[in-house]
């Protein structure tokens, strides 16, 4: 008998059993144990022959099936005691059936989830706009951070959910408006932080034309205002920039 065995197609022994019950059109409440056990074992054997790794759960289930099957072969004793026990309590299949029904509910719910997921994926969103032009400087706030690791992971999933669109074929639209004033402040801030002379080239962290031009103008402006000093030890040697001591930021503070 040819079995189209693909172990990956099953989520475990319960899934395999449900598959068999469906395929054989068996009533789940009255499972013919001999038949289902036979079919199940055939699958396990086929897997073995294909040298697939059989998860131990499949073997445990095989043992369970065999145990139920053999129990059902035992003669049924009319019980002369235990009046409080109801007769349908001792169907050896009960526990298995109960589990299968329970599992089936969630398996079906998973199908529903998949459907919801697909529907959701038809809607596209956009990242929050950069609103820094509307906000003041960030004051270091003493506000208690009320975010958890899951908030962070959740935010990251949102980022992933945004489908990445193809880049424009030619130019990428940039709206990076860097003001010379802003760049002057940044430069001063950095120079003050390092407290010693800095290579001129370090002032150009981004290889963008606009950025380089603005930075260059900012440096010229700072030199004119005597806020920074530019040094060069000899012709063609490296140019260094150093902040005038005590200068923190332009105008402000």
């Amino acid at each position, binding site marked *: 008998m040819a079995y189209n065995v693909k172990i990956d197609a099953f989520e475990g022994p319960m899934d395999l059993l449900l598959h068999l019950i469906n395929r054989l059109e068996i009533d789940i409440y009255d499972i013919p144990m001999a038949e289902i056990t036979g079919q199940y074992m055939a699958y396990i054997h086929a897997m073995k022959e294909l040298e697939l790794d059989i998860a131990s759960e499949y073997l445990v289930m095989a043992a369970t099936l065999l145990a139920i099957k053999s129990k059902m072969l035992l003669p049924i004793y009319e019980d002369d005691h235990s009046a409080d026990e109801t007769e349908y309590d001792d169907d050896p299949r009960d526990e298995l059936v109960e589990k299968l029904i329970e599992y089936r509910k969630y398996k079906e719910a998973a199908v529903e989830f998949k459907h919801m997921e697909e529907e959701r994926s038809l809607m596209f969103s956009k990242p929050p706009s950069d609103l820094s032009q509307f906000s003041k400087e960030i004051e270091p706030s003493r506000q208690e951070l009320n975010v958890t690791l899951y908030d962070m992971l959740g935010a990251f999933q949102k980022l992933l959910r945004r489908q*990445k669109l193809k880049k424009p074929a030619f130019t990428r639209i940039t709206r990076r408006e860097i003001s010379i004033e802003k760049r002057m402040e940044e430069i001063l801030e950095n120079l003050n932080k390092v407290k010693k002379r800095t290579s001129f080239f370090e002032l150009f962290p981004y290889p963008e034309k606009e950025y380089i031009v603005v930075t260059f103008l900012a440096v010229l402006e700072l030199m004119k205002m005597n806020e920074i000093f530019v040094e060069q030890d000899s012709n063609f040697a490296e140019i260094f920039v150093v902040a005038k001591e005590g200068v923190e930021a332009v105008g402000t503070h």
Partner: protein
Amino acid sequence: MELIKWKGILEALLFAAGDEGLSLSQISAVLELEEFQAAHIVASLKEEYDAGHRGITIAEMAGGFQLVTKKEHSDYLKRLVETPGNQSLSQAALETLAIVAYKQPITRAEIEEIRGVKTERPLQTLVSKALIKEVGRAEGSGRAYLYGTTKEFLEHFGLKTIEELPPLAERGEDDIENGEADLFFGNFPDPVE
């Protein structure tokens, strides 16, 4: 101010918020209106989007409103997409997630009992995708972690609240006919409780 102007302002706000979305209380705070008034503006903007041939609409997800493109235009949008967005979950992860969603809070052992297989991997995947999280510890000596769903879960499936989940299928009808069903399964505790 006229409603039409409020709608324009709301559109600008929702646009700027992007997929971070805005809660009703945020909207009413920014507009300096009562929440019921803000809700009215949200509803009429959504109505306008849905009635006309607009490309976007308002979706309510995880307790917030956000602008999204209409589903009917997804074919055009997919032509623009370079990388698919959030990938779909595996069958194992979906099953595990369904169990957590309907039976939360729940331990790993309880999930494995239902699925009949080890469920460590799918749980790990779901945690790292922030779809579920540890919500506490079970009583008893084991003190196993209890899992529950997150806000991201609602976002992932486009749900407003957890109550919006479709009811678990009670395969009742076709089974009751064959009588035995009642005998065996009449008194099962409802797992959604």
